[in-house]
């Protein structure tokens, strides 16, 4: 499959995770077997890293608190950031981890049942890492949009039913 076709395939399944291989083949004008093999190879090379469902948990439960935690660190040695990242991302509470440029180094997205649980995690697990100089925890008050999806407004088709 050509690079352009792979890009189209990835863009399509990134937005529509539940299209079948047959449907993808039809839409992209390719053979089903090509789609199958390409997807398998993209999975094994960890380009396709998983299929998830985007859920607005705020509407389901009150036991869902998120925080963005800034970490300033003093990395040890050449691969200091990498080793720290390895350690931090192992925690199941950590949902996302980014190394950033700017006034702090890591941004950690932490999930918990309540503020206390997250505070405890930050103080006992993150702040206690030797290389971590300081932490700033921002609790998420409201999520408006995630992964390109507007959580508040379900798009309705505003068009008239029939037009020329």
């Amino acid at each position, binding site marked *: 499959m050509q690079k352009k076709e792979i890009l*189209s395939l990835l863009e*399509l399944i990134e937005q*529509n995770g539940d299209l079948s291989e047959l449907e993808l083949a039809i*839409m992209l004008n390719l053979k089903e077997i090509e789609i199958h093999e390409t997807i398998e190879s993209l999975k094994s090379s960890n380009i396709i890293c998983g299929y998830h469902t985007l859920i607005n948990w705020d509407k389901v439960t009150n036991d869902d608190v998120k925080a963005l935690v800034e970490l300033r660190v003093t990395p040890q040695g050449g691969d200091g950031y990498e080793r720290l990242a390895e350690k931090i991302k192992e925690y199941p509470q950590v949902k996302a981890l980014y190394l950033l440029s700017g006034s702090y180094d890591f941004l950690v997205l932490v999930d918990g049942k309540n503020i206390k649980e997250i505070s405890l995690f930050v103080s006992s697990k993150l702040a206690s890492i030797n290389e971590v100089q300081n932490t700033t925890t921002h609790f998420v008050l409201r999520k408006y949009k995630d992964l390109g999806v507007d959580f508040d407004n379900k798009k309705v088709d505003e*068009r*008239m*039913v*029939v*037009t*020329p």
Partner: protein
Amino acid sequence: MRELLSKKILQLKPSGIRKFFDVANEIPDVISLGVGEPDFETPYHIREVGIQALQSGKTFYTSNSGLKDLRKEICTYSQEKIGNYYEPNSEVIVTVGGSEAIDLVLRTIINPGDEIIYIEPSFVSYLPCILMTGGVPVSIELKPEKKFRLTKEQLEKVITNKSKALILSYPNNPTGAIMEREDLQALIDVIQKNNLLVISDEIYSELTYNKHHVSIASFPEMKERTIVINGFSKNFAMTGWRLGYALGNYEIIQQMIKVHQYAIMCAPTISQYAAIEALQNGQEDVIHMRESYNQRRSFLYHELNRLKLHCFEPEGAFYMFPDIREFGMSSEEFAVDLLNKEKVAVVPGNAFGDCGEGFIRISYAYSIFELKEAIKRIEKYVLSKRV
């Protein structure tokens, strides 16, 4: 009251689409495949420029022919797409949608009794606009076997000494047909010999799949006698902004401006500012939308084939025009029955001219999930009819 009204207008048939809209609009939970406009919202950067224009008080008239900066951008864009140079000061007019440009050009060229040749099936406005202007409409019926393309022979057959102009509308609504370079080339001889003007409605010019759109104006000998109509509605998903334009010889455009200045004054100012942004920075959006339409086109075409609904493979716009004659119903009966039984709205083919009878127009300007659900319902309906 009727005796006080214009006979010409009273005789005009209301649009078949309007009639069907009134039926479809009353039924809840309809999945509509009947819409003739993009499902994409106008790209945000374009909307933002419109908002800024409004916020900064750009609320005045523009010159009759449109903002100079917009006319310049249109000419640059057209140079790139068609390959022709049009002079921004005299050879372009910005209109209220492509629709106004169609009306303007017909009003500008028609003397009573002039014959205007147009193809069918096609967009609903040509015939009434010709009639309202006192012209004589002459239609050429196109066939799916010929990919709904116009041939030299068909054109020659209808030409008389009253023939004034030919309206070409490719990529075509409702069939999705296109005309390739050699198809257009074949017509030129006849057009020149009979001194016809060509009105080339290219409103879907950016929406062709796997082939580039060719404008008949791009042939050097055709530039002078062709009025190109285009706009922002379909190519940039800007239907509600109501903005189009016409390009052509200054003698025609200057006369069109007169009609426009008395009837309309100028196209909406805010829309004109947004359109500048569309032309300057909207190409990536166009590419993205085209790719998405193409994916849906492949899907829908495959599904119609699977259901054995015979359909010409469209290469432009965002419509399919399947043949439903096997069911022994008229287009309208079929569309109404499908609507009542399975709550899917499609447009009866005869809304686009008599030769559209026996066909329906399906739009694929819908998300893949809507298309999947609609196909499920159509399948159920078709199977029940074939039992």
